[in-house]
């Protein structure tokens, strides 16, 4: 069995234990604060930061617009350099391909988001491979095959580029038998010259001037390094996201995690409640875009945000994540409109829109609502609301509405003049 991680609980339910985890909360808070400070410093000393962001966005948009041609060019370059390209539609297919290529051999597999996404470790273990998570494992010298992720692929040359802090993957690149690299199809750029932008913006966005290890590998070289190089290109819903005119912006993501470190929600919950890595604002859009909003758990992700906009401000490729979140909320609501029995929320929202659609109806509802709310209040505040609105008053008061609305005051004043 292969197990690609997927959200199983609705975000609000999955968040509850995380919120109660004192040590997790402290780690998240301290970690986020440290990265935010480092990132702010790294960006502050980059006078052309705004231009770098715009250039990164333009580069990725241009690539995504011609993704099919760009990927075929990449395949030709990798093949010409002695490598083999494998195309995988789904996560399970990608994981099976990796396991088949490893052929039961022990592998070194440093962590990478795409490897978690496809559930590579479980597939390898199921196929009889022993998986060494980092280069520090005691048996590492005996390992002859490695599985890695990658940050950027260059279509022009077939080069794989990876930026690292600790260099775990770098130590795996010289395995003698086979090097298996897994990548999402959106991670390609057309030309080597395009690295100029991302090699500057990606490290700073992640909070450093430079990353200590920048590794570049291309195909195979006889007598040097691995005898075989395999590139597994993973779709897993990316073409589905690409077909979404608003959502496709999320495929610009270069994986810097800056949006996670500024997200107030992520800082309280960590990655767990998002159900699949990386979580945070980008995860809350990527998972529904790639998997659809059919399950209640996935459909809850676009709502796991206050839309505060901090993520959009820091994104090095200018993904307007709140815009995509709102768009996906619309997709979720539209998908539920077809149900034979309307959801309670749909009924409430429809009634509210109908009421607001006419000033007379609005004022009548206002009058009734104010009278009702004042009955519930004591000492100028409402301490308990019924039904779903009780979620507000569980921990927060609501001010009692004054007897006279603004519009009535305005009318009274005009009448008195």
């Amino acid at each position, binding site marked *: 069995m292969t197990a690609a991680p997927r959200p199983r609980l609705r975000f609000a339910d999955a968040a509850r234990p995380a919120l109660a985890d004192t040590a997790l909360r402290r780690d998240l808070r301290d970690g986020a604060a440290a990265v935010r400070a480092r990132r702010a410093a790294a960006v502050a000393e980059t006078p052309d930061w705004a231009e770098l962001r715009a250039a990164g966005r333009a580069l990725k948009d241009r690539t995504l617009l011609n993704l099919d041609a760009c990927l075929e060019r990449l395949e030709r370059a990798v093949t010409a350099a002695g490598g083999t390209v494998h195309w995988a539609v789904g996560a399970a297919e990608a994981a099976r391909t990796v396991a088949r290529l490893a052929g039961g051999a022990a592998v070194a597999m440093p962590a990478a988001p795409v490897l978690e996404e496809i559930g590579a470790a479980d597939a390898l273990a199921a196929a009889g491979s022993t998986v060494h998570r980092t280069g520090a494992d005691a048996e590492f010298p005996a390992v002859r095959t490695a599985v890695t992720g990658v940050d950027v692929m260059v279509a022009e040359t077939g080069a794989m580029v990876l930026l690292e802090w600790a260099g775990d993957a770098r130590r795996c690149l010289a395995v003698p038998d086979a090097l298996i690299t897994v990548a999402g199809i959106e991670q390609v750029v057309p030309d080597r010259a395009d690295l100029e932008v991302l090699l500057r913006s990606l490290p700073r966005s992640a909070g450093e001037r430079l990353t200590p290890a920048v590794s570049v590998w291309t195909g195979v070289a006889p007598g040097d390094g691995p005898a075989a190089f395999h590139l597994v290109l993973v779709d897993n819903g990316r073409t589905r996201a690409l077909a979404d005119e608003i959502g496709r912006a999320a495929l610009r993501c270069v994986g810097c995690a800056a949006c996670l470190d500024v997200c107030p929600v992520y800082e*309280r919950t960590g990655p767990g409640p998002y159900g699949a890595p990386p979580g945070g604002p980008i995860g809350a859009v990527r998972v529904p875009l790639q998997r659809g909003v059919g399950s209640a758990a996935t459909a809850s992700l676009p709502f796991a945000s206050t839309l505060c*906009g901090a993520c959009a401000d820091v994104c090095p490729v200018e993904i307007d994540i709140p815009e995509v979140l709102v768009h996906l909320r619309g997709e979720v609501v539209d998908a539920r409109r077809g149900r034979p029995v309307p959801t309670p929320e749909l009924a409430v929202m429809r009634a509210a829109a109908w009421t607001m659609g006419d000033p007379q109806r609005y004022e009548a509802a206002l009058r009734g609502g104010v009278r009702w709310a004042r009955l519930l209040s004591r000492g100028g505040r409402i301490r308990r609301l019924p039904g779903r609105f009780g979620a507000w008053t569980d921990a927060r008061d609501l001010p009692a509405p004054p007897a006279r609305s603004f519009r009535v005051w305005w009318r009274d004043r005009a009448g008195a003049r």
Partner: protein
Amino acid sequence: MRVALFVACYNDALFPATGRAVVRLLERLGHQVVFPAAQTCCGQMHWSTGYRAEAAALASGFAEVFSGGGFDAVVTPSASCAAAVRRDHARIFRAAGRDAPPLPPVHELTEFLVDVLGVTDVGASFPHRVAYHPTCHATRALGAGDRPLRLLRAVRSLELAEIPAADECCGFGGTFALKNADVSVALVADKVRHIRATAADVVCAVDNSCLAHIGGALSRLRSGVRVLHLADILAGPEDGA
């Protein structure tokens, strides 16, 4: 100037004093304020919760009310509603396959005071220790910057306190406060902790929705700290108050 007031539906019902303060303030500065009585809601809540069709109907209604009448500007004491009209309405109409109808310029109150009227000292006095919470829509959606602070610094006798991590969201987020109530409360708990560290007596902002959230938590804790819209501070007390 002939200014149309968009009071915002929740101010109309829950915080009418803020609407009255805007009228008092703008009239004191010599402008004619008109309240188009047919106004209801800009559609922000529906749009940001995913109810596109309903939001489109409300956005159309907003345009109908404010496009006629020969107004020089529309002013609202809500940064999030100003952002909804200026940023989201174009998206709402695009999603509905329609062109956005023309509107007079729509300003959040402090933008209107500082940028359009060129005023920072409105002659107010407020002898209290006040903390300003820069709401997400004011800061990030509208780019209000230090305009509210410049207005506050010009208020006589007002002692300004700075909230630690001021630009972090209070956790309101519209329907987020209900759908993800636990995370929302975790956020406002930290916001309240930061506010209380300032020893401020009053928290002010340019969004009564966020203030209802922060104020709801401060009230539940019986903290004694009040929340007030910036307009209420700038306009000064009402006659007979």
